[in-house]
């Protein structure tokens, strides 16, 4: 009796357990479905993966888009994304590799759009809206458009705004130290690094300012793509010889990071940080930058400048909008093109020397998996309207991608940024895009690591650049070999020299 009772009670327990499990499962799946469906955007809403600026101003941006012709029933919703451009690239890579349908639009850094193009992960606008593509290719800044094109003229996004490196400075401090930026026309006549460093040092001392020059030298993409490229370019040096090699062919172009101009540029930065070191560059004044630049990216380097602790500061136009605001430095903020080491005629590699700014910026690209392609196109088209571009310049300090707009009176009248239009135009005209190829992600990491180490005094500049040369050559060779194998398989076998040009991508 007792065992049978025990069995029965256990059997009931089991049945109840299984029933309860089933009910729980149903309830859980129901609520999960609820969660998933709640997250979806409305049928007329286009989601754009963008940044905090867009997210915070999405209402105003949407209103302006409607004003310039976007259908009133289409709404824009922004995802702020992470601040770091590199992390955002990884995020997009995961989304696009996973064939997600949302977001429909991506704000893509011009520095890493090409790998997505080479992977067929973006929609070619030239195929679907040829007239729009032609307008962009004819009317926009040419080097900027190239960073979203393929070799055959395909256009994989709408250029949104270019950014270029510029030198911000405290006009009040340099004047106090006895210099005359206006009379000497610093706004459009670049200083040499020698003159720049002397002015900085004298101003620091005369005005008792803590630091002279802040920039970004952390071991990250921003160093290799931008700051270090500007320094080396201004001395007539380059990572890969002449400018025509920027986009390849990978494996066939020379690696020139150990050349004298690049080593000199490295020594110059080392001198700025440490002063009279073993490998100082005699021609520049030293000890004007804090060692902290080795850890600084854009924002960390801008804050000390905004706090009044720095005389000169290299950054992107967004920093001009912040530092030039009336409640910041206002008209005491000066902006000048990046200084130069040698003139263009003296440059060792063709296309370099003189004032050199790195060209960055963002495009808007379309997700090929989006079911809302037509509506997304409409948003992209509205973004190409000159009125929209001027509005974004006014609202967010985004430079228009059309040179013609720099001539307009309206652009000059924009508060704060309007004061610096001449300088900004000059920086865009003297800009160089970053050398994006399939090998660039690895090369960029190595360049940043070695430049950062050289700046910090861990090894001499020439040793570090020699190591870097070996690393870059290894990457170039590894990338070329893969390219050749892949293209031979895909096209029935052109020669390896032809396949090398395939790496030019955005070229």
């Amino acid at each position, binding site marked *: 009796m007792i065992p049978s009772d025990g069995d029965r009670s256990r*059997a009931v327990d*089991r*049945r109840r357990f299984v029933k309860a499990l089933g009910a729980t499962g149903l309830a859980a799946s129901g609520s999960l479905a609820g969660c998933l469906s709640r997250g979806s955007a409305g049928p007329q809403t286009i989601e754009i993966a963008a940044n905090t600026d867009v997210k915070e101003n999405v209402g105003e941006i949407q209103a302006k888009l409607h004003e310039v012709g976007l259908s009133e029933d289409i709404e824009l919703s922004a995802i702020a994304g992470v601040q770091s451009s*590199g992390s955002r690239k990884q995020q997009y890579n995961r989304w696009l590799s996973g064939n997600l349908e949302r977001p429909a639009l991506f704000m893509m850094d011009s520095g890493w759009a090409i790998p997505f193009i080479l992977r067929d992960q973006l929609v070619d606008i030239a195929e679907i809206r040829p007239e729009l593509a032609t307008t962009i290719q004819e009317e926009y800044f040419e080097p900027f458009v190239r960073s979203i094109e393929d070799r055959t003229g395909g256009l994989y996004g709408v250029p949104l705004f270019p950014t270029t490196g510029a030198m911000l400075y405290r006009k009040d401090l340099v004047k106090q130290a006895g210099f005359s930026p206006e009379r000497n026309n610093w706004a459009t006549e670049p200083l040499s690094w020698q003159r720049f460093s002397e002015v900085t040092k004298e101003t620091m001392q005369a005005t008792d300012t803590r630091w002279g020059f802040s920039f970004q030298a952390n071991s990250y993409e921003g160093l290799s793509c931008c700051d270090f490229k500007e320094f080396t370019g201004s001395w007539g040096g380059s990572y890969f010889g002449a400018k025509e090699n920027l986009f390849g062919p990978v494996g066939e172009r020379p690696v020139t990071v150990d050349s004298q101009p690049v080593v000199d540029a490295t020594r110059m930065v080392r001198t700025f940080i440490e002063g009279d070191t073993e490998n100082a560059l005699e021609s520049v004044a030293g000890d004007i930058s804090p060692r*902290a630049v*080795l850890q600084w990216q854009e924002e960390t380097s801008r804050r*000390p400048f905004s706090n009044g602790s720095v005389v000169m500061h290299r950054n992107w136009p967004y920093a001009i909008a912040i530092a030039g605001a009336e409640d910041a430095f206002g008209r005491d903020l000066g902006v000048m093109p990046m200084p130069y080491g040698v003139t263009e005629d003296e440059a060792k590699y063709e296309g370099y020397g003189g004032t050199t700014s790195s060209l960055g910026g963002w495009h808007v690209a379309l997700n090929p998996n989006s079911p809302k392609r037509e509506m997304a196109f409409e948003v992209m088209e509205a973004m190409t309207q000159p009125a929209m571009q001027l509005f974004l310049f006014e609202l967010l300090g985004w430079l228009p991608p059309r040179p013609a707009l720099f001539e307009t009176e309206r652009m000059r009248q924009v508060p704060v940024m309007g004061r610096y239009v001449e300088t900004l135009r000059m920086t865009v005209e003297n800009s160089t895009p970053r050398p994006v190829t399939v090998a660039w992600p690895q090369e960029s990491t190595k360049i940043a690591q070695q430049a950062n180490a050289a700046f910090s005094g861990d090894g001499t500049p020439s040793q570090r650049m020699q190591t870097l040369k070996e690393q870059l050559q290894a990457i170039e*060779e590894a990338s070329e070999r*893969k390219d050749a*194998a892949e293209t031979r398989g895909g096209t029935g076998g052109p020669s390896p020299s032809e396949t090398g040009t395939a790496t030019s991508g955005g070229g």
Partner: protein
Amino acid sequence: MATETGRDRSLSLSSPGRWIEGLSDTQFAYLLLTPCLILFGVIAFWPLVRTFQMSLQADLLYGAERLGPFVGFENYVELLTGERNAALPRPFFDPSQIFTSALTVTIIFTVVSVFFETVLGFGQALILNQEFRGRRWARVAIILPWAVPIVIQGMIFFLLFQPTIGFLVEPLQQLGVFSSTPQANSVESLVIVIVADVWKTSAFMALIILAGLQSIDRSLYDVADVAGASKFERFRTITLPLVLPSVLVAMLFRTIGAMRVFGLIETVSSCSTVPSLSCLVVQAFSSSRYASAATVAFVTAAIIGLVVSVYIVKFADVEGGGGF
């Protein structure tokens, strides 16, 4: 008719019920575990198999295809011999660069952080196991770091060691502990990441060890008192042997977690300065070198598997079959 149909239905419904009732306890346990095992197989084993499969193909940098042709174990050979280092942000293993090689950085991080977490966690658990006024608040204080999200934790330590922002940089520099830019230096950054991990995860160790301590039969201590055992003898003969299985379980969990470290490094420092194995996977993946990423991922999983096996085999006798 209706009654008969109802009876038929109840008969047909009851047959699975009868079948369930007829199962032995072990069979029933496996029956209940089946959905879980299937789910586990789908979310754990399939990705593992797929990763292995991917690691046997070549990297492919162009076109819609993500992977190149089958290359056998070439990726593994190149990774382990250092030939693949050019394609990776930092070397996988280079004896001349211990603090910037992923394998050695991961091992140093794991050994040092798990050691300090175990020692501190044990100490915290012993304190929390005492009866004293305000014990509840002490528990909250010790466990609090465990509740801090990893990004906030990362931001705290990132800012603490930022010159001009964090208040720790100058004093530590004056004491000669760190340079003025600790986050630009791989060794110092690794120390910061380890400190950040110990700060947070000691609490986790303390929790698990505390649970072990509380399961010890108090009467054993009474016997020890009667026998005249000193405090140290009580600890050595009663507390330590009985709590050891919990400590080993905690160490096992932490070791697995530490060998996969990624988020903390990305938030406190950067993968370029402190490269872990997971950093290599993520960076190779984001450079579109999917096969290389899969190879490093599979090697990482294999190393973790090896370490786990050592724990299980080596300490199975200590543990006595209850926990692992």
